[in-house]
């Protein structure tokens, strides 16, 4: 089991209904892709938020990370749409 801090931004935050949450993930959840799969199964709001997989970007510990990036206990993992600043 690993404890993670999950953050959501923009429409992901609105769909999940929370800007952040603490979760305990089972040992098999080792990558960002594993985590999105696990989070999707938490409930209908999470499932709706993560349905548009290709439109979701991620950062692990404040650095952009791809689906195969590893995650470990204590990490801060953020999910968000492609950025639109500037």
């Amino acid at each position, binding site marked *: 089991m690993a404890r993670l801090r999950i953050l959501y*931004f923009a429409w992901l935050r609105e769909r999940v209904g929370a800007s952040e949450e603490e979760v305990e993930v089972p040992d098999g959840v080792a990558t960002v892709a594993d985590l999105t799969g696990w989070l999707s199964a938490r409930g209908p709001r999470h499932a709706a938020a993560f349905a548009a997989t290709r439109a979701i970007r991620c950062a692990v510990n404040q650095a*952009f990370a791809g689906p195969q990036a590893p995650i470990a206990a204590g990490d801060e993992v*953020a999910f968000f*749409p492609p950025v*639109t*600043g*500037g």
Partner: protein
Amino acid sequence: MDATVRVQTAPFDVSEELAALIAGRTDIGGIGCFVGTVRDHAGGRPIRAMSLEHYPAMTERAMRQIAEQARARWSLLGCALIHRVGELRPGEAIVLVLAASAHRQAALDATSFLIDWLKTGAPFWKKEVFLDGESAWVAARADDEQAAARWLGP
């Protein structure tokens, strides 16, 4: 190179930022400047406001990395990246990029690079609030990705 990187809700003053960049130095030959402002329409619909959110713990680090990449490519003598967040009205300035160099081409190219990468590499998200009260998150634009990617080519 000094890089000023700031995220703020308050407006910025372009002349103050220019003065701060120039202060105490005589080696600068030119400064490129880009100011992004809120348009009053989106997709043919009038907008009332633009709401910007960001990922505070990550934003400044991402902006410093972008400044560092510009420094590695051009002989910059200083730069400033200032981005506003919160609710902004049409006509208000959102973002300021300044890049100073001994020669104009480096200053102008670096300014262009910095705004292209700021649009695609820093964690900001815009939401348009229309006159009728509806709102919509701005979708990332393929041409912004292409504008940033053109700097990767030979």
